């Protein structure tokens, strides 16, 4: 799995940080998403998919099978 985030689209709702704090964080100055791990371990794949699904802005893209 390969992750990308779009910081221009992100609205800082923090849903991803709530679900997967190992993978996502928020910038100190404006709360916009920071990707901590673009190839998360298998055990995190399900919660990362959910984070992409619940991201209100659609700022998280998941490329499977990488």
């Amino acid at each position, binding site marked *: 799995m390969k992750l990308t985030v779009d910081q221009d*689209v992100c*609205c*800082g*709702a*923090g849903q991803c*940080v*709530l679900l997967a*704090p190992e993978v996502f964080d*928020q*910038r*100190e*100055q*404006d*709360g*916009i998403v920071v990707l901590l791990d673009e190839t998360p371990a298998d055990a995190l794949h399900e919660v990362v998919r*959910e984070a992409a*699904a*619940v991201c*209100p*802005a*659609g700022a998280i893209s998941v490329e499977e099978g990488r």
Partner: protein
Amino acid sequence: MTIAQETLPAYPMRKAPGCPFDPPPELGELQRQGPIAKVRLWDGSTPWLVTGFAEQRTLLRDARLSSDVTRPGFPTIVPVLPTAAGQGLSFIRMDDPDHARLRRMVTANFAIKRVEAMRPAVQRIVDELIDGLLAGPRPVDLVEAFALPVPSRVICDLLGVPYADHGFFQDNSKVLIRRSVTAEERAAARTRLFDYLDGLIEEKTKRPADDLLSELAARVTAGELTRAEAAQMGVLMLVAGHETTANMIALGTFALLEYPGELARLRGDETDPDLVASAVNELLRYLNITHTGRVRQVLADIEIAGEVLRAGDGVILANDIGNRDPAAFPDPDRLDLGREARNHVAFGFGVHQCLGQPLARLELQVVYGTLYRRIPDLRLAVEPADVPLKHDGFVYGVYELPVTW
């Protein structure tokens, strides 16, 4: 107006008598017929009403839907007056890039970790207010004595608004969120709140403190923000920061008292943070205190669910019935505090999704995790049918909740 328009269902609809926690039955009927329908508003306009959960999420993420209320033909749930000169609008009424520019100035204050760090302070406020309840007279109105003070004190501390002014801002907020007042009354309340926040920003410019309004005042001085934009953001955060959460506390307590089996789960031997967290999401999903939908206008044609939404059409996304969509939530009309309901649309969806949701969740977790454990025999002091309901609010809830123990 054509005859066809006259036969369209009028929106918003009213909840059924004896069903204070359920969306109006007509909404469920529309949802069963399909995810999108046409309805009729007070002015005869006929926007789309989206009732399907999946369709709501798809559309709310679509940049072809505008939130800019200044656009000609933008639908309104009630009559409104043009915004007073010099006041401008808050960013929830704007589209990107203006919306993003302003929202990003305050997003960090509501980031997950920043809000989580407020948990001890919120717990202290909740505990002090429960101490006050236990030492005070019974029965008591839980709204005045607890549900309103909790979020009001929290948002005052965060913004730097003197809590001593709570009577003023609570009274004006109540006018703002009431559908049954006149457009003139609502505009006057908005102006009073705007002037109040404008004065506070001026004060913070001269004597900055460690609070959010002082941060906004510094941005005004630095030329990043106009005074009016700062004051509008202050109004938005102050009103949204207390009224919504207060209603979730009081209505949530009413619902739990009516579902004692669910309430017992929260009162278990030990506090289970996971259950409390899921209870908050489930009560948000179930109760939908924002019950007149999200209002948008189509910028360019959108095809969805076999319909074409044309540029200029109004669209209302009814989160209350969306959160009861059986395709998304099995047995949707059952309150189940253990349900995995975190994908609900009670906070909306898309780039306008509630900015303060981490703070709202924190406050509700502390309240639901504390109140019923500290007052285990809390109960209504009136018949359930006699609890006055905010049918006429943009924000639903109870006007009073007389309780005893």
